[in-house]
């Protein structure tokens, strides 16, 4: 076992120089690259998590939109059902009104026809009764007296009116 003191100095120098060379040219750059990779992986992980969150939010949004669309469709159907029912009711009411109106009209027509007929009948009855009366009177009195009677009658009518 030789202990040569210059070996100590040379070892010290060699080790220090090697340490400096390694840290300057090899390990330093390599560690910065490793650090960069770590950051890259970290950022990619973050990105992935945000993307996942976004996707989840999007799905939620889509679900909501779907729900809303379904609700809207239901509303539309309900509304149309309601409007159609209303329309039917309206139609029925209209028809009822129309029939009532027609009935009233018919009744009024009947009434006026009846009145007309009565008026006509009254006139006819007057004429017929006059004829009957004249026929009866014809047998009793002649034309002359008849004429005198009519004149008197007409006179009476003329003075009285």
């Amino acid at each position: 076992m030789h202990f040569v003191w210059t070996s100590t100095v040379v070892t010290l120098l060699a080790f220090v120089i090697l340490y400096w060379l390694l840290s300057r040219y090899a390990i330093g750059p390599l560690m910065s690259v490793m650090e960069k990779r770590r950051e890259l992986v970290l950022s990619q992980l973050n990105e992935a998590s945000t993307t996942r969150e976004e996707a989840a939010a999007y799905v939620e949004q889509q679900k909501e939109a779907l729900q809303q669309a379904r609700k809207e469709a239901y509303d539309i159907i309900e509304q149309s059902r309601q409007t159609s029912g209303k329309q039917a009711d309206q139609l029925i009411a209209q028809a009822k009104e129309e029939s009532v109106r027609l009935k009233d009209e018919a009744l009024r027509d009947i009434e006026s026809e009846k009145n007309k007929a009565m008026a006509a009948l009254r006139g006819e009855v007057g004429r017929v009764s006059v004829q009957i009366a004249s026929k009866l009177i014809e047998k009793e009195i002649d034309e002359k007296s008849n004429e005198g009677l009519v004149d008197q009658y007409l006179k009476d009518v003329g003075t009285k009116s």
Partner: protein
Amino acid sequence: MHEAPIIHLGGIPFDLSIITMLIVSCLVVFLIAKLATRNLSVENPGKLQNFMEWVIEFVQNQIAGTMDLKKGRPFITLGVTLIMFIFVSNMLGLPFGIVFEYDSVEKATIFGHQIVPVVDTLNSAIAAGEAHPHAEVAFWKSPTADVSVTMTLAAIIFVMVHYLGMAKNTKSYFKHYLEPYPVFLPINLIEQFASLLTHGMRLYGNIFAGEVLISVILKLAAAGAVGWIASIPLMMVWQGFSIFVGAIQAFVFMILAMVYISQKIDTHEEH
């Protein structure tokens, strides 16, 4: 036993094998790291980049296990440098060895300088009257199989740890020496130096023992035909085990360094 190729330049000793192997280890580590981070990509990392990231993440997990990762982040580079440097150093000595054999004092030179331990060994052998004196010098070995290297690494951690303790955690750092009672001060001081010593010696002992056994197996192989055949499975087993030990020791050295750091920068808020 292999000698170390130590030469004296202007009276200062240099262990050429350690210097060479340290440079080789540093080059290998830096080349691996540089190749791995050549075409850096955030989204599509290559195989080597993945490997390097795996190393960093491994160290990061170990640090997170010993201390708060916010405080421990600056030590990741240190941990990666330690584990890679020690692992590569441990592996370097395994695949082959370069051994020079010298049998005369005149030839035991490198670049015109005497290899001191070889000269000493040869001289003592000649003085003992050996007919064929010879010494072997190992050039290629694990730098971590040398005590001065491992103790230096441990000392770097030791100095750094205590500096961090004093600078960032002053009050509880000094209080820690008097706990649980002021009587324990010597024991606490010894503990610090013991941990320094075991930190360096553990690595040295494991790797050095591994290389010694390899050279023993190589001697067995050189002994004869039977030894040569017997040495092959032994070598395979021991090489495999040495790879395992080298990896474990690199890991242990790194994790211990992190544990020491966490002990000293821990503010003991929970007490």
